[in-house]
């Protein structure tokens, strides 16, 4: 199980979605798919057609910059971070 940490902008869009949760997944894309199964539409908030991560969404696996195809190991920490932007 990987520990997934989500940005604070996501839970208000999906009732019941916590900021942190455990996900059984082998890659970032797989983890997003597991989340999307429980909260339909979540994939669209993180990915755009390609699919690729949205330009202002950053994912880190065990503190290393990741893409959708980055592997996730058992016990990995996955941080999904919205860019520091806006005003």
């Amino acid at each position, binding site marked *: 199980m990987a520990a997934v940490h989500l*940005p604070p*902008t*996501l839970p*208000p*869009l999906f009732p019941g979605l916590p900021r942190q949760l455990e996900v059984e997944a082998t890659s970032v894309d797989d983890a997003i798919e597991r989340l999307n199964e429980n909260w*339909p*539409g979540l994939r*669209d*908030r*993180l990915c*755009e*057609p*390609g*699919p690729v991560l*949205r330009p*202002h*969404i950053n994912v880190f696996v065990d503190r290393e910059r990741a893409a959708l195809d980055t592997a996730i190991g058992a016990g990995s920490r996955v941080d999904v971070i*919205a*860019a520091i*932007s*806006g005003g």
Partner: protein
Amino acid sequence: MARVIVLAGTRKGCFLLESDVDRREWSVRGPFCEGWPVYHAVHDAETDTIYAAAASEWHGAGVWRSADRGETWELSSEGLTYGADGLKLSKISGLNAAHGRVLAGAEGVGLFESRDGARTWTLMTTLDGQPGRGDWNDPSKQPPGHLGLPGLLAHPDDPDRFWAVVQGYGIFETTDDGASWAPRNRGLRAEWPLDDPEVGYCVHKLVMAPDKTRLYQQNHCGVHRSDDAGQSWTEITEGLPSDFGFAAVAHPHDRDSFYVIPLDAGHGRTMPDGRAAVWRTRDAGASWQRLDRGLPERDAYIGVLREGLATDGLDVPGMYFGTSTGQVFASADEGDSWTEIAGYLPGVASIEVAVVD
């Protein structure tokens, strides 16, 4: 008892301003839509549902809906895509709810429809084959932020007939529910060279008079009237302080009355001389009347965007406009006098009005 709800789409979410039909005391609710920038919020009178087109810098574009007048909201973008090999969809620019469906105009240029209350969407057209189609999604041929299909006007009686405005190119009409289209820009003026005389016109806002035949528009180059549903256009700018502006609205009961908010055409694009005013014609553009009672008449460098002016359609119609600096002004007497009903909202992109029981 009937209530008036003004829907304000702003840079930081949607707000709802409410009053009884006397339109003297107003309350403000919001922000809704999680503070996402809202480009256009509309009310579907058939279903009493609010739709708000929004785009988050982080989480992409979608349409929010509320079936309980703002108490709860849901977001969906299912189907709002051109696919991996298609155009990039950066935002939904305009909405229209009529005849049991919601239309959404997108940037890049395309039109989506939803027949399930904005839960899912289907791409209707990207206007392939129309003059200008080869250029209007090319950023090198359009300034930044100047792409898309922001204007949608549905015929009130014929669900197969509506008009779409492509930014910088002009109006296109369909009479067969989007199967075919034709440009409707004859008689318009452009202050730049045109590759094709049928397109290349910068239509900012297109509205319909209550006779359902006359159209008016505020263009980048002047104000224009069509007495044949867009087949031909006549300029009616003379008498206005500027030929430039974005917002426009037709009187809901009088085909000869029409409103615009002229702006300086330069970089500022605010009301001329810092004096706020709405302008009205009661004779189809032969003459214009400045309406400024109750509006700030000094140091008011405020702008109003294309969807920023609306009417409530009541017997004595109320008029409303929202500014790029966050004020909303209302008139309960057809524009003769105005009151500020919200002063410190985020910058307003759109104003629409619902009258509900």
